[in-house]
């Protein structure tokens, strides 16, 4: 499929050039791309889920390699894989359970995609997950034989040549793809609306006359604060500007436009001001499985200051930022060094940098990292679109969203080769 491939290449290029700002946009675009990949993927009669998974993995691998630091890409790829597995599972259970449901769903299948059935595939999957297969160690162990069983049944179904069965099969294959696309659409919708869902909880966390500190700009934080403002809470916000990107200025402008009392401070003033702050609310780049946060640079400092003064450090983030990986040395391995020109003008120190002398090492290095790692012990609370959680609960949420098979995306092709 050349058109899909060109889409993928296009997106890979964008990721490589860091053209896509923010994990939310990245997540949405990844999901959209994967949706088109799935929809264009030709489904074989046998092992439909496996074919879809392979296709998604192949694309996902390219995307992740394009920007390994942007964890949202990997998260979405894994989410889509998980969706495929779930849909496949729910179809199988439905097929085993009886033909009634599949017949009923067959009618729905002909409906417009926008006109979603009351009992969507995702809901069925969720129900199946929660009732039949609670994610536990046992489930994880059972997962593998189950999947093979599914494949076996489908392949055995393909073996039989009966007319009615073949019709059933084709409808099933179409149904799987349809259900998956449906679920991916829902995921995209979730990503798009996560701000609102998070913002709904704002009034439960912000009280009257609160003083809130934030650093840099996060759309989630902005919506969160504005939602509390709309509920007639009056409070004050300190915005640290977040050098060297100065996104705090943008946030301050947006907050002022919404009528919030906003004070812009320099990043260095965080420690001075934190003693007068009731709560720190910040956005995140990614949330790791151990509850640690990959956050815009400077937040570790803020978190330490908040801990020092016993100020709650609250991270608001959509669930697409939830990454199932455990970080190792994240300050270095999951970081990105930006251009020095943010700090020093080009050529400003050219007279000082004499590369010819000495051992050729320049005397001057400029470090401009993009992210900070905030360890879980510094985080008081996560507020996601599914509610508030402790850092220690993150691993459990991850089990809800991802299947254990997909944690390492790269391995599958390596084994296949």
């Amino acid at each position, binding site marked *: 499929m050349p058109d899909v491939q060109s889409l993928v290449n296009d997106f890979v290029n964008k990721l490589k050039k860091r053209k896509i700002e923010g994990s939310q946009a990245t997540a949405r675009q990844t999901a959209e791309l994967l949706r088109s990949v799935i929809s264009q993927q030709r489904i074989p009669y046998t092992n439909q889920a496996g074919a879809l998974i392979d296709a998604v993995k192949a694309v996902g691998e390219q995307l992740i390699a394009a920007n390994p630091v942007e964890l949202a890409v990997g998260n979405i790829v894994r989410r889509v894989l998980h969706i495929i597995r779930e849909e496949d599972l729910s179809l199988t259970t439905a097929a085993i359970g009886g033909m009634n449901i599949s017949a009923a769903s067959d009618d729905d299948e002909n409906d417009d995609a926008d006109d979603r059935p009351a009992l969507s595939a995702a809901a069925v999957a969720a129900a199946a997950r929660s009732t039949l297969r609670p994610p536990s160690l046992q489930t994880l162990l059972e997962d593998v034989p189950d999947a093979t069983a599914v494949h076996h049944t489908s392949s055995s179904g393909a073996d039989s040549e009966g007319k009615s069965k073949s019709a059933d099969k084709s409808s099933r294959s179409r149904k799987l793809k349809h259900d998956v696309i449906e679920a991916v659409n829902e995921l995209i919708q979730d990503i798009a609306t996560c701000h609102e869902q998070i913002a709904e909880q704002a009034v439960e966390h912000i009280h009257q006359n609160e003083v809130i500190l934030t650093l840099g700009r996060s759309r989630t934080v902005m919506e969160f604060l504005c939602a509390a403002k709309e509920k007639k809470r009056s409070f004050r916000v300190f915005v640290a500007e977040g*050098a060297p990107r*100065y996104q705090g*200025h943008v946030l301050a402008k947006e907050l002022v436009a919404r009528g919030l009392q906003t*004070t812009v401070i320099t990043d260095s003033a965080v420690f*001075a001001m934190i003693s007068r702050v009731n709560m720190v609310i910040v956005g995140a780049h990614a949330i790791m499985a151990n509850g640690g946060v990959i956050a815009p640079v400077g937040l570790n*400092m803020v978190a330490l200051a908040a801990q020092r003064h016993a100020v709650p450090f609250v991270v608001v983030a959509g669930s697409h930022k939830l990454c199932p990986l455990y970080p190792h040395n994240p300050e270095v391995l999951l970081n990105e060094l930006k251009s020095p020109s943010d700090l020093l003008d080009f050529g400003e120190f050219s007279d000082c940098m004499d590369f010819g002398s000495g051992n050729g090492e320049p005397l001057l290095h*400029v470090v401009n990292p993009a992210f900070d790692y905030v360890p879980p012990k510094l985080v008081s609370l996560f507020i996601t679109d599914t509610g508030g959680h402790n850092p220690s609960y993150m691993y459990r949420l991850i089990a809800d969203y991802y299947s254990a098979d997909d944690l390492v995306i790269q391995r599958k092709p390596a084994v296949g080769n």
Partner: protein
Amino acid sequence: MDPRRPQSQPGIVSANGPKVRRVGFTFSLQNPQSPPPFSSVISGAGDVDGDFSSTPVASTSPVMIPPPRIPVQVPAARCPVDAGESILAAGSDNSGDAELSEEWVRSSSGKYSLGFSMSGINSPVAAERNEEVELDFVDGEEKFLRGSAGTQKLIVLHGLAALSFRFYVFCYHSSSNEGNNAGTGAKMSEAPMPNKDMKAASKPLKEKSSKAERRALQEAQRAAKAAKIAASSGMGAHGTEKPAKLPKQPPKKKDAPLASSAGVSEKKGGDRSSEKDKKKDVPPPRMQYDDKSRVEKAKKRSVVKQTEARNRVELFQHLPQYEFGNQLKELESKFFKLDPVHPAVYKVGVHYLTGNITGSSARCIAMLHAFKEAIEDYHTPPDKTLIRDLTARLSSYISFLNECRPLSISMGNAIRSLKTCIAKLPLSISELEAKTIICSDIDRFINEKIVIANKVIVEHAATKVRDGDVLLTYGASSIVEMVLVHAHELGRQFRVVIVDSRPKFEGQALLRRLVTKGLSCTYTHINAVSYVMHEVTRVFLGAASIFSNGTVYSKIGTACVAMVAHAFRVPVLVCCEAYKFHERVQLDSICINEIGDPFAITNVPGRKEINYLHNWINKENLQLLNLLYDVTPADFISLIITDYGMVPPTSVPVIVREYRKEHLF
């Protein structure tokens, strides 16, 4: 009287009191015994000279050590005291029998006071006559080279690494009656404590008694002492104060308790001074800018017309929040009309205002130089006394500087020292002498408290730099720069991480200087401090002041850096001269602080695209807060390197207390 002269021992000032009024400036060497880590600092102080440096340093007994006699036969002869720092040349009157002697008096609190006395015994001079003192600074030249970036280097041409001495000597002849001379002179030879008389004499001077009264007082004292009567009778003549003196203890200056063999009296003197100190200890309440009436009053007086910032930050209502950039024009137009402000002071003030001079040491030195210039040009108005008028004049300068930019703690301490110096001047001293004394005191302060202190700190700090270290510094502290350069010159192999912050980016200037000198540097911004802290082995920080509870008052962001270093278990070393210590205590950065130009927040130099807030600065909801200082809690600090040695933050109150005792603050 001539035959009497040989009687007098070298150490004994053969002064017959009323003729001579000597004021010895007490200056202190640090007691070599006191805190052990300091001894290395002070060991250099022995270089002063063979004559009497050895005696005071070596001696521990609180009795006076007679210094060698110094021949002053030749009028205006140089005294052979090659004191390294200053050479005094005392001219006597033509009778040629003036005698100069010095005494080292060591008090049990570890101070040495040096009194010089000149006596013109046989010359009954009808009128008061002052002898000019010539102060010769051999190697006390400091050159201040100020870089364009506003940071400053001190190149000190000093032969001595030790604390400097400077003697202020002036002779003062007053008419007295001969009879008394004979009596007292004879007694003086027995009781070799002449400079106590001098100190005693200066006390009533301060009380603005008339000359006749003072003279009578002195004579009464001498008579009392000569007769070895209990001091109570002397006190009776003296008036109200010091009733609790022991017999042998003549009245003392409060701040320079002289030595006495009686430890009790010494203690008493100490008590008394500490009581006075205690009163002084409470820092005068700062101007609170939320007090409307006082602000109005201050505005009426002020020279610099400030416009208040439109959106003041509520939390900082108590601090002055002004708009910047518009005062300058007005000040320029006032330049030729500014009657009360001396041009030198004016210049410095404008530099403060524009931010050309920043850094507490640089500001302090600039201020002192301006004051010196102003004092040199000063003439006492006819019907006024120098002490009061000059103090008032200085106060007006100080308030002008304060309007330009709130005074730093270092400046406050320097001003206190200067005012103490002026207040200590005897009333009857001539204008020229007084000016000389004050100016040399200013020089001494700069040299001793800043220049040499810096050297000592650099020596200490360099011992903390090892090969392979990665040293992190924040902002552009001049003392830390000296440390880094010195360690580099010592051949240590290390890297420097310079952490910089908005809005001034002072670190860039430091970076440029260090890279030019060949140091390997890494430059980053304060948000990335957690990222770079992994590889750092030591953090060197400067300070604007250190408070008595061990907190470090410094450039905004220092606390963040210290906190992150603390979290990463990296030692934090703060370099700060002891003159910047302050007895105030402070817990947060809110109550005492300074607010800079708020619009510096919205503008990012070199980044034109960052202009999100340009059209929004007039919005009522938006406030811009540009804090200049913050307070680092003591538990983030591993070590404070000061001119008294390397101490933990818990020792700061000790240094503050001792320092005040010694330096008349």
